[in-house]
């Protein structure tokens, strides 16, 4: 039987594996957090910066 201590297991001994359901839930929240930023519109100045890389400025 697994001892339900969450305290004091940060020492040398190998901790119990994380409950797969917990791991899955963390994964979901992590992606929700990340995708929240990914799905934001891109700032125009960053798009402009990449467009400048075509070298058009040099030819002027």
């Amino acid at each position, binding site marked *: 039987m697994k001892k339900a201590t969450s305290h004091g297991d940060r020492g040398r001994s190998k901790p119990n594996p994380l409950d797969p*359901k917990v791991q899955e839930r963390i994964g979901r929240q992590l992606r929700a957090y990340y995708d929240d930023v990914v799905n934001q519109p891109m700032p125009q100045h960053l*798009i402009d910066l990449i467009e400048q890389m075509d070298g058009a400025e040099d030819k002027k």
Partner: protein
Amino acid sequence: MTVSASLRKDLLEQIPNLRAFAHSLCGNGDEADDLVQETLMRAWANIASFREGTNLRAWLFTILRNAFYSSRRRRRNETSDYDGQAADRLVVLPSQDRHMDLEDFRKALARLPEEQREALILIGASGFSYEEAAGICGCATGTVKSRVSRARRRLAELLSMEEGGDFGPSSAAETVGEPAVTGDLAVHLRK
């Protein structure tokens, strides 16, 4: 230095991911976008050292991470409590209509040591392999693995999930889908 049209398109496609990684590192929207800008400038200046066909995303993430830590070192010399300030900013992100779940998660994430946070993001959100993440962070694959596992464990503690089992009714987060290509991006890619 001129960058080919196809490479410019690839760079553009990476912006959303670079912003998300930058956010997770500095937690402040403006600072994150400054960091992405700095990353693109550095990439442009060093574009000759990038071989087309190799992993552009990993290359850019490496540049971004280096840029973050070098600006971080500069600031640390200026203010002694930079860590504390950064953690505060991560917590007070503007949020009107965010789920409490997401807000709690953001706060918990902010409390992780930086090295654990970046490892977790690279593996769990950006979709890099352990080997790629190790390359980006300049450490051994095993180190990334243990950082990710410590990060998950710490998050479980912070979010009181460690008991396992009952989380209540399933959350809306389950419906999170694939990141869509945003309108802006789609438009620009067609140009």
